[in-house]
């Protein structure tokens, strides 16, 4: 006969939640196995039954780089602080592709997962965070393009490269924060889905991806840098290309990124209890 439970069985109390909640990290670590399975599932199904499979992870950014190099590099001749345009855009488009994909999929995660939402319990935070991690695989694959271009242009890395983890973490953190905000809103208001397409396009031009940040007039630079994506892109560009990091563009964004992440988590946890009731 199965001996059910232990001397100290886990006790759960179910009652109406109210007010602000904090993230239950212990519970999240209990569901670690499930989280990894969900990430793996996300990765597998994206390219299921395609011929090219994971190669698509490189084609998307590659095509953008080619087109932008032609349009902004040759035709419009946008100023790029002396960096060859291909290099200039590659180091920006690859992280941007990750961020935009992660944010879009994260925002739709609850809506798309509504079947699971209503039938089984696991920490709801896993929904928006899964695509943020799953798209890192695509990011990792497209880094190959980055490496090729960097090697081709014989860029010499400096100690700045040690700052890469800082910007990498910011990149992931911003995507997670925005994802948490938007997914919680999207489950209530489907407008988010329609707004996302246009917002993502606008965001791309709000950051120095196809143009250089130095083209922004001095008086507007602080306001410009409040957009956390600016700091991430400029930071990554400078540390990967061995140039000095323009901290003036980076600090305001870091503060915003932290705020977005924390408020996103708080908002998500607060709205969590009504997700199933308003799907």
């Amino acid at each position, binding site marked *: 006969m199965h001996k059910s*439970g232990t001397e100290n*069985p886990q*006790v759960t*109390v*179910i009652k109406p939640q109210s007010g602000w909640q904090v993230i239950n990290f212990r519970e999240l670590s209990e569901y670690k*196995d499930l989280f990894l*399975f969900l990430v793996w*599932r996300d990765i597998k199904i994206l390219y299921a039954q395609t011929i090219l499979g994971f190669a698509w992870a490189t084609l998307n950014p590659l095509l953008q780089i080619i087109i932008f190099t032609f349009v902004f590099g040759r035709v419009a001749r946008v100023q790029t602080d002396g960096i060859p345009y291909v290099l200039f855009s590659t180091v920006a488009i690859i992280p941007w592709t990750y961020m935009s994909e992660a944010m879009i999929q994260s925002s739709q995660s609850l809506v798309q997962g509504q079947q699971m939402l*209503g039938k*089984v319990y696991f920490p709801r935070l896993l929904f928006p965070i899964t695509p943020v991690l799953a798209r890192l695989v695509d990011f990792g694959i497209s880094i190959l393009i980055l490496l090729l271009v960097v090697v081709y242009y014989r860029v010499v890395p400096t100690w700045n490269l040690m700052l890469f983890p800082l910007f990498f973490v910011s990149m992931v953190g911003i995507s997670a924060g925005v994802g948490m905000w938007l997914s919680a809103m999207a489950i209530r208001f489907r407008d988010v889905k329609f707004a996302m397409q246009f917002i993502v396009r606008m965001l791309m031009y709000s950051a120095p991806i196809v143009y250089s940040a130095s083209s922004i007039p001095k008086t507007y630079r602080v306001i410009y840098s409040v957009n956390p994506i600016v700091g991430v892109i400029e930071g990554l560009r400078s540390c990967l290309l061995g140039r000095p990091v323009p901290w003036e563009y980076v600090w305001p964004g870091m503060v915003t990124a932290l705020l977005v992440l924390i408020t996103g988590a708080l908002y998500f946890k607060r709205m969590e209890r009504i997700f199933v009731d308003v799907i």
Partner: protein
Amino acid sequence: MKTDDTAIKVENISKCYRIGLKEKIHDSFGRTIIDFIKAPLDNYRKYRSLYNFDDTGPDSDGHPRPGACDVIWALRDVSMEVKRGQVIGIIGRNGAGKSTLLKILSRITDPTTGWARIRGKVSSLLEVGTGFHPELTGRENVYLNSAILGMKKKVIDRKFDQIVGFSGVEKFIDTPVKRYSSGMKVRLAFSVAAHLEPEILVIDEVLAVGDAEFQNKCLGKMHNITQRGRTVLFVSHNMGAIIQLCPTSILLEDGGIVAGGPSKEVIDQYLSSIFRPVDSADLRNTPIRDGDGRLQFTAACLQQENGVNTNMPVSGRPVDIVLDFVSHRPLSRVQFKFTIFNQMGIAVTHCSVESSGQSFNVPRGQGQVICHIPKLPLPLGQYKISAAAYDDRGKLDWIATACIFNVQASNFFKAPFVPPIRYSTALVEHSWQLMTDGCKQKAVCGQ
């Protein structure tokens, strides 16, 4: 030291939802335009109100506000206590609140008021195949589904072969699930669920899928699970499964617990509540009625051979179905008819004046029409009669439930044996003959 062996304690849990109401339609163009412009604000308020119920509680003076008409209470003040190792069935009509209760205990949704305390890990089986993705193979889906249901990877590795073996889809385990038949999907999904080892198991009607053979297999496996000292809450419409698996049950009705105890008694109470009591002596205010009303039934009842009214006729005996009516004008060529329905809602037989090839001419005023059945061919159980009258112009009157009666222990066949109601919707007279090389034997029933 006293060990608390209460696995689940529920205290006054209530849950309410907002339902959609008909949108206002305006007759003036101006109002329509204004509503179109105000739409975003109205929509925002509407979606926000989906989870905000401030307008339904008592107002600031503590006086109870009249409940908002678009709020329904799926559960009202439900309290119960389940000890470790108990297997409890939960039955009730659709909309009684069974699934809502399970969802709250599974932490999928929060209660509006009240609380519950659970000792032990809960595994919920509210749907078979949660998380299955058509693009993944059977193997991948087993891992995914098991993880979703709460199994750790090491446990899944250990049990993988057992799970696949039980499901019977070993040959196709590495094919994407979208190529499976629906039966295979269900078998695989149920197989995963059957190998859970939770302390507390909460199941919602998942036995309602699959063919009969598979359902039997599932019942058997469920039985195993319940024998191992686990606490189980089992929601089902399958009374046979409930009786087999759950010694005790509770009955939910309109969001509240109305009965709890040994399963047989609770099931009896449930089945008898399905047939609402009807005042067959006075049908003037019967709820479900149709027809133009030129003739109206006023009462319905059954009468035994001696003319005494009864609502417990004996199977196999003669019985009269008596319908009183009042006709508001003289009518010609009237057809009277009625249908007898059993507990399952199946129409057992239909009797109509039409079968005789004739019809009645009914003068104005009160009257009575009697249908004589020489030998009531109904097995034990509860039945209802719906009655109707037609003439050439159309439907005069139709009543969904004119009267309810219980057929008593019968001597339809003159021998003590009565076939169980499960296998006989109606009783038929018959005789048997045995033919072998040696001799012929005959046995005749009911004479």
